[in-house]
C-alpha cells in the first residue's frame, strides 16, 4: 500500500506492506533510528512517537494507519542545534544512563507537559507509567521533567515544536 506521512516536517511517500509496523517504517524505511523497540508488547514505551498531536506506541500502530498523519520523533524535537527544554532537562539532571529508553521517555514527558505544564511529582510518575527505564530508578527522570517544566514556564512557550502544532486528534489510532 502507498502511504504518505509527514515526519518531523518532511513528507515521505512509500509503498509499504500492510503489516509493516510504524516503528519499522520510521527506523528501516526512513532511517530514523532514534525511536527504539524495547519490547513487542506495548509495555516498555521506548517506541513512543507523537502522531497527530498524541503520543502513540509505534510498535502497536501499523504504518498504513499513519497514512496522512503528522509524526514527530525524537529527531524532530530540537530546532537545529537548539535543544528542546526536555532534552536539556534530561541532560542537565542526568535523566539517562544507557539512553535506550530516553527517546520514549522524552516523548511521554512531552505529551504530559503539553497537557499539564506544571505537574507535581506524583503526576509525573503516574504519566510515565507506560515507559520502562532499567537504569535510572526514575529519580533523575522525574527531576528532568520538572526541570523542563521550569524552563518552559520561564520561556512562556508551549512544549510543541513547529511541526506538531496541530489540534489533537486520535484519528487512526
Amino acid at each position: 500500500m502507498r502511504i504518505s506521512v509527514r515526519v518531523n516536517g518532511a513528507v515521505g511517500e512509500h509503498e509499504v506492506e500492510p503489516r509493516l509496523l510504524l516503528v519499522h517504517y520510521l527506523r528501516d524505511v526512513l532511517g530514523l533510528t532514534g525511536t527504539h523497540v524495547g519490547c513487542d508488547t506495548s509495555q516498555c514505551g521506548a517506541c513512543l512517537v507523537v502522531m497527530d498531536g498524541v503520543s502513540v506506541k509505534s510498535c502497536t500502530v501499523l504504518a498504513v494507519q499513519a497514512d496522512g498523519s503528522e509524526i514527530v520523533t525524537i529527531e524532530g524535537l530540537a530546532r537545529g542545534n537548539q535543544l528542546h527544554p526536555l532534552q536539556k532537562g534530561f541532560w542537565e539532571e542526568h535523566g539517562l544512563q544507557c539512553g535506550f529508553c530516553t527517546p520514549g521517555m522524552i516523548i511521554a514527558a512531552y505529551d504530559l507537559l503539553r497537557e499539564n505544564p506544571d505537574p507535581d511529582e506524583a503526576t509525573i510518575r503516574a504519566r510515565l507509567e507506560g515507559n520502562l527505564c532499567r537504569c535510572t530508578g526514575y529519580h533523575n527522570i522525574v527531576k528532568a521533567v520538572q526541570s523542563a517544566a521550569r524552563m518552559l514556564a520561564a520561556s512562556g512557550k508551549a512544549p510543541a515544536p513547529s511541526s506538531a502544532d496541530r489540534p489533537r486528534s486520535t484519528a487512526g489510532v
Partner: protein
Amino acid sequence: MTSTQVPTDRIFGARVKRVEDPRFITGRGLFTDDIKLPGTLYASFVRSPHAHARITDVDTTQARATAGVRAVYTGKDLSALGPIPPGWLLPEINIPEHRALAIDHVCHVGEAVAVVIADSPYRARDAADQVVVSYDELPAVADAMKARAAGAPQIHSNAAGNICFRWSIGDREKTDAAIRSAPRVVRQRLVNQRLIPNAIEPRASLASYNPATDELTLYVTSQNPHVHRLIMGAFVLAMPEHKFRVISPDVGGGFGSKIFIYPEEVVVSWASKTLGLSIKWTAERRESFVTDSHGRDHVSDVEMAFDDGGHVLGLRVRTVANVGAYLTLFGPCIPTYLYGTVLNGAYKFPTIHCEVEAVITNTTPVDAYRGAGRPESTYLLERTMDIAAHEMGIDPAELRRRNFIERGQFPYQTPVALVYDSGNYAPALNRALDMAGYEAFRAEQAAARKQGRYLGIGISSYIEACGIAPSQVVGSLGAQAGLWESATVRLHPTGKVSVFTGSQTQGQGHETTFTQLAADALGVPMSDVEVVHGDTGRIPFGMGTYGSRSLAVGGSAIHTAIEKIKDKAKTLAAHLLEASPDDMEYANGRAYVRGSPDKGKSLPEICLAAYLAHRMPAGMEPGLEATSFYDPSNFTFPFGTHIAIVEVDIATGQTTIRRYIAVDDVGRVINPMIVEGQLHGGIAQGTAQALWEAAVYDDNGQLLTGSLMDYGPPKADQLPMFETDRTETPTPMNPLGAKGVGEAGTIASTPAVANAVLDALSPFGIRHLDIPLTPARVWQAVQDARARGGR
C-alpha cells in the same frame, strides 16, 4: 552542542554533565539494531517450546520454499563448531555441552533449534514458523531442590543427579563447634529468587563477512567485546583473532546479561561467513525472557551463632544454586567465589563455613545479574541479622554496630579468604540513621500501629567486593582469563587526546568519567579528550565491564598510561629546555622546571615536538602514547548502610516505600552525579527483587513470567525519590582511591526493603517471608497470622 564547561578547580570530582548524552537525547545514539549494512539478511530462530525433549526430526522443506528465504540451518549444519564453553572452571565440574543450535536434545524452553535467514525480518519470522520440529518430550525439572532429589529427571548424561559441582569454603570443624556450643543460634531457610535482568535494549548482533579480506566483523550487544572475540574465535568458530573484529557500539543496559557469548551471536557469525553476506538478528522481548541469562536462584539454610551479648560466633551456610540448563561465562564463579567469599560481610565472624551445591535444571542458564553473588550473600546476612535482632530483643542497628569490624582492624583477614584493605563502617550506619531520624521514626511507628497502620524500617549494612583480581589469584581459582584491564592513551601532534579503554559502557557514563580522569591528569580541557571503547579493532585488549570494575581497574589503567606519558613529556621538555629531567614537574598541562613555572613547555608544544622528532633526546622514540595493562593487587571493598522506610497496607498487602536512604562509601568519586545515578538504578533493581520481580517456572519448565507485564519490573509510580549521601574512605589498592559503585545499590537494597516490610509485619508475629514480598504473599501471611491468633 558545545563541550561541557566545568566551573570547578578540578575536573576530578566535579558534577559534570555527561559528554555522551547529546547523541542519546537527540535520537542519534548508535545501538546494534540501528546499524544498517548494504544487502543485510535477517535471522529468525526456531526455538524449543519444551523444557526437555529429544529432537527426532527437523523438517525445513517448507521453510526453504518460503518467499525471501536464503537459507535454513539446523544443529547438524553447525555440528563442526565447538560448544560454547564456560569461562570459569572448578576442580570437579560437570560441563554440559552447550551447542549454538541444539542437535538432538533441548534442555530449556527457548533453546535454539534452527535458524532461518531471509531478506527481511518479517519474512524470516514467517519462514521460521514453517520449520517443523518433531520432539519426544522428556520429563522436565525447573526447581533445583527437586532436580537434586532422587528420581528427578536426568538432564545431561555427564552430570549425574543433575549436580554440576559442589564447592565449599571456610573451616567446617571450627564452625560446627562454634554453632554447637553457642548460647544462641538463629536458623532460617532463605530463598533468593531467580531474576531476569531485562535490559531495555534487547540483545542484537550483526555479522558481516568480507570475502575479499577474509575478515568477519560482528556488531554485538556485549559488555566485553574482546572476550566475545577470544571465546568465539578460539573455541567456537575457529576464527583467527586477527581476522575477527567485534564491535560493541552503544549498549542499552546490560546488568550482566550481555557478558555471555550467546548462541545467536555464534550462529549469525557462522552464517555470515558461510553465505558471504551480512546477517542481523535482534531479539524480541519474549526471546529475551527465555534466552538472556537469568540471575540469583539460591535456596540457603543459614545458621548464625551468637553469644549472650549479641556478638557473632560463627556462620554456617548451605546453599543450593540453580545454574540452569547450561553453564554461562561466569556461571561457576558466581555462587562460589563471588558469594561464599563475601559471606563475612561487615562483621567479625570468628569462623564461617559455606557449602554450595550447583544444580542443573531445565531452565534458562544463570549468569551474572547486577551484583552476581554479592546480593545473595548480603541478603542472607542482613536478613538473618534482622531476624536475630528481633529474636534477641536487640535493636537491629545496635546489633550491627556491635559486630562491625572496627576502623583500626584493617587490613582485615576474613575467615573466607578475602582481606579487606580498608573500611570504616560505623559512620555510614550512623549517618543513615541520622538521615532517617531513627528514634523519631520508632515513635511514629508505635503511634501508627495504634491506629492500625503498619510502618516498618529496614537496615542493611553491606560490603561489596569489586574488581575481582588479581589475575594470578583468579587463575588459581579457576578463571580462564586474567582480570586486568588495558588502556592506551594517545596524544596527537596538536595536543588532543584519545583514550582507548578495554572497559565497555552499557550506560555507566565511561566516556564522561574517563574524560574527566584524563583531562584532570593531563591538565587539558575535557573537550580535548575523546574516549574510545567497544571495538577490538581499535583497542589493544579489554576484559570488559562487570563486577563494578571499570573505574578501579580500567580507570587505573588509564591513569597508569598517563603517568608514562607525563614521564616522557617531562623528559622531552627537559631536553628542549636544556634542563635536567630530574628537575621537571608536570601540572596544569605544562612540563616545567621545578620552581620556575615560566620555564616550561605546554602539552601541545611537547606533542608537536614528539611527532616532529627534530630535537629528541638520545634514545627517545618519536610519538607520544602509552599503553598500560593494569592488574590490581586485590579487590576493592565499598561499604555502606541503606535504610528503607515502608508502609504496608494490611488490607491489600501492598507495600509503599515512604523513604529510601543510602549512605555509601565507594572511595574517591570522579563524578558525584554519575555515582548517584548508579546508586538510584541499583536501588530500583534491588527493591524490585524485594517486592515485585521473580522468574517463575511451572513444574513443566514453562516460564510463567515471560513478559514485561507478568515479570513486573518497576515503573516510575512504584518508587520514591532516593536520599543519598556518602562517606569517603579511599582504597589504598589503586592509584585513584576509587572502589566501584555499579552494583552497590542492588546489593544493599534488597535486604533493606525486605527487612522494612518484615519490621512492619512484626506485630503479627511474622518472623520471615521469602522475597518478593508481593501484595498476595503479604496479604496471605497476614491472614494466616490472624488465623493463628496474631492481632
